């Protein structure tokens, strides 16, 4: 059981900044995210896009903002449960929440901060008959352990970075790799495109374009697929079919936690961004209130105010006063201390 003060669901910019603000109040944080890395949309959807409305940064790449936020909160030693989706929540008689992830990891905290952005990122699935039947029986949307593909016959579908990169990676491991894409053109990094071209020339991967997977077959597990190109159908025997069509966000299980939902977002009180369930806050893009704007800078503000109420829940009756970092400096949980240089006061006539 992972225990912390504030359990943050979502490791995007708002969740990461919460760690910093909570740290100033000596509260410890742990973050859960369905993605395998921190940064949320900033690292998953648009790491190379510049953002122009972060105060103090005339221009910053979304990926760099994530790096900076991780650096800023590092001193408060946040814990991370990555690649796991927050699934179930319960509250005990002492007011402690327990959140269990899709992989069964249990977390306990008196305060929950849902900073889930657009929801958890789920693989986009093609519309194919019997697709769900073959899930886990030859169909995988996310490659978790590449070693299972050793000496296997693989078909990958998709035209983006992950389809290219995994085709390249698996070309060395698998017995046979076929990449199927609806268009002739692929979208990826230049070196990935060149590498894929080279592997195709050397017959290490088979590329079929413009084509689509149109049928899945197999009695107990997936045994073959049908690829349709120019209306001609070809059956390919295989062991694994990996559709890589990117990820799309879903509110997911959080929608069933008893929280008041409006327009796919969680309703909060703007006093402290608490939801209808005391102790559960919602901050950043996932919340809604009159006048809400889905902006990173608004998420930062909401996280800051939320931490003040979290402190009162975690330390009932304890006195505390808001302090500027220019005055108090920052004491990291890792033993580091940051503070302004003190002016030197001495006579210059001696």
């Amino acid at each position, binding site marked *: 059981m992972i225990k912390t003060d504030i359990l943050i669901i979502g490791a995007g910019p708002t969740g990461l900044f919460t760690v910093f603000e909570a740290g100033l109040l000596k509260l410890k944080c742990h973050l859960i995210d369905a993605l395998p890395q921190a940064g949320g949309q900033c690292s998953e*959807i*648009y790491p190379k896009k510049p953002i122009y409305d972060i105060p103090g940064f005339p221009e910053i790449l979304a990926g760099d903002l994530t790096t900076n936020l991780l650096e800023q909160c590092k001193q408060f030693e946040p814990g991370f449960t990555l690649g796991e989706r927050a699934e179930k929540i319960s509250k005990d008689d002492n007011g402690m929440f327990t959140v269990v992830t899709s992989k069964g990891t249990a977390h306990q905290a008196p305060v929950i901060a849902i900073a889930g952005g657009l929801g958890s990122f789920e693989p986009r699935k093609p519309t194919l008959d019997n697709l769900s039947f073959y899930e886990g029986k030859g169909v995988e949307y996310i490659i978790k352990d590449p070693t299972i593909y050793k000496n296997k016959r693989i078909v990958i579908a*998709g035209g*983006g970075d992950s389809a290219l990169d995994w085709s390249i990676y698996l070309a060395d491991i698998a017995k046979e790799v076929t990449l199927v894409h609806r268009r002739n053109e692929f979208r990826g990094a230049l070196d990935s495109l060149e590498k894929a071209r080279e592997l195709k020339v050397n017959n290490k991967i088979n590329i079929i374009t413009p084509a689509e997977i149109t049928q899945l077959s197999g009695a107990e597990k997936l045994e073959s697929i049908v690829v349709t190109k120019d209306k001609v159908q070809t059956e390919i025997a295989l062991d694994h079919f990996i559709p890589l069509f990117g990820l799309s966000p879903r509110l997911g299980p959080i929608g069933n936690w008893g929280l008041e939902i409006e327009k796919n*977002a969680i309703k909060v009180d703007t006093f402290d961004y608490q939801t209808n369930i005391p102790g559960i806050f919602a901050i950043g893009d996932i919340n809604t209130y009159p006048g809400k704007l889905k902006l990173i800078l608004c998420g930062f503000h909401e996280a800051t105010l939320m931490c003040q109420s979290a402190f009162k829940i975690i330390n009932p009756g304890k006195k505390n006063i808001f302090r500027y970092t220019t005055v108090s400096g920052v004491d990291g949980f890792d033993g580091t201390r940051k503070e302004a240089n003190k002016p030197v006061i001495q006579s210059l006539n001696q």
Partner: protein
Amino acid sequence: MSDVHITIKDREGQTHKIVAPTDMAMNIMEVVRSYELAPEGTIGVCGGMAMCASCQCYVHSEHLIPEKGDEEEAMLSEAFNVKENSRLGCQIPITEELEGLFLELAPEEL
């Protein structure tokens, strides 16, 4: 600058005749959102960067619309329910040329 009249068939099949400004640098996806013709969170998910296909629509009328850029082409090649007349609403700016446009929102990807 004047407003243009656009007809949009929503995902439930209901048709809406709406007025869109040409001087606010808006695009089709934003107009759909501003009229709340699709639930928030189901359209314009990436914010309008042609990085998701949640604003996919089918253009039914013959209008002169700017051609697809590489990013839109690439996204549509990975999207589902794509037809010949598929476009990403976020990549179509509202201009006077769109007067009388008729489009239909593509189904939400589940």
